[in-house]
């Protein structure tokens, strides 16, 4: 049974149909990357998955269970298992790094403070931010903030981690430190859904790649196929333009 199953998912913003029937399945521990031109709906797909934008049709199943995006309880259960990291890091500006990472386990999952902070420290070490426990987000660079954001998303032990263009807002020099961090996540059994423009990276770490255009997935396959021998003309066009850089 696939870990994450998306079936004919649609989402509309007024008269604009942003997602037009997206179907996708990912197995546990897979790394699925979404590529495609701007406006193709990649970020919207992630936002709909985590429940920030309401779907207007279709269904989503996590480990076989259907998600009811209109029901608060169902959303809570979903967010227990699914975390998201945003392009704009979205760290809490009024909290230190340690507090940012530990607050959800302490206040939402009700874990004891000492335990949660110990885990948070381990996660921060893992993302390379061990010496910044007491710093505030405004004191950190974009790359550092993004790594803290990843630690924060991991603190709730998600089964599925969504990464929405997490390097797009960073200085080119900072991109690699974040990519390195993501790389370490690929063998931990977490299902990763990544939206990214970093084609070389996508090609390297993905188990499957989905090409999106105008709200639909037009091709879904292994990186080898998508990048070297795509079946769809649109995929070929996009990939060749991007890889020329």
């Amino acid at each position: 049974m696939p870990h994450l199953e998306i079936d004919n998912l649609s989402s509309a913003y007024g008269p604009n149909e942003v997602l037009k029937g997206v179907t996708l399945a990912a197995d546990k521990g897979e790394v699925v990357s979404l590529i495609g031109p701007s406006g193709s709906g990649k970020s919207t797909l992630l936002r709909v998955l985590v429940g920030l934008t309401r779907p207007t049709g279709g269904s989503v199943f996590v480990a076989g269970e259907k998600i009811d995006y209109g029901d608060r309880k169902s959303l809570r259960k979903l967010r227990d298992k699914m975390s998201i990291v945003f392009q704009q890091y979205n760290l809490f500006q009024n909290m230190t790094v340690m507090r940012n990472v530990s607050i959800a386990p302490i206040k939402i999952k009700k874990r004891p403070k000492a335990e949660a902070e110990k885990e948070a420290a381990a996660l921060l070490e893992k993302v390379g931010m061990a010496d910044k426990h007491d710093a505030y987000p405004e004191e950190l660079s974009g790359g550092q903030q993004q790594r803290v954001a990843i630690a924060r998303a991991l603190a709730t032990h998600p089964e599925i981690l969504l990464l929405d263009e997490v390097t797009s807002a960073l200085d080119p020099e900072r991109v690699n430190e974040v990519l390195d961090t993501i790389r370490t996540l690929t063998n931990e059994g977490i299902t990763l859904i990544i939206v990214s423009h970093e084609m070389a990276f996508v090609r390297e770490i993905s188990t499957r790649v989905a090409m999106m255009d105008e709200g639909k997935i037009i091709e879904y396959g292994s990186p080898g196929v998508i990048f070297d021998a795509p079946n769809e003309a649109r995929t070929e066009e996009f990939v060749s333009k991007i890889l020329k850089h």
Partner: protein
Amino acid sequence: MFQRLIDEAPLFFNYHNLVFILEAMGRTLGMTIIGCTVGFTLGLIIAVLRRSESRTLLPFRAIAIAYVETFRRIPFLVILFIVLFVIEPLMPGASLFAIATVSVCLLSTAFLSEVIRSGLESVPEQQIEGARTLNFNALQMLVMVILPQSWKVIIPPAAAFIVMFIKDTSLASQLGVIELTFAGKMLVNRGFSPVLGFGAILICYFLLSYPLSRFAAYLEKRLASS
């Protein structure tokens, strides 16, 4: 005129008068502090209510909006009169101080709810999305993420409004509350020169208001630079 001032000054600044003025200042402060505490509390509730999108709360939201938009557009003097004429028949023993304080509460709630509301709205949407995806409930979001970040936007204008409320309490003198302005009038009626009497009262108001005004200005500068 100046001769009169020089003659009267020592008589004016005696212990009895000073205590009298201080007690009156206490009433001015009392009305203001109680009014602002209630104003902040109810103002916060109204601000949160106005931001919510729940259907069940719609009638309350409508009442809140009507209340705020109305009471911001009525002179405080008229509010005082209305409260007086409503409470008097209902609670004949009610003190004038209480009536005046209720009026200040009505006024401050209306103004402070707007200040708080724009403070809450100033927190970027991304902060709220981050909290939502971490499964924060509405109360946790408000207390742990939104409020801590809205203080800096709320306090400077709020301080300016508190100064306005201190000055508005002078109208309570017309009801008969023995606050600073009434005390001034009484002193002048006792025969002291108006310059001494009202001058001393002006200084008292100044001592109450100016520190707040400076504080608000200082905070605004700090906020603008950060």
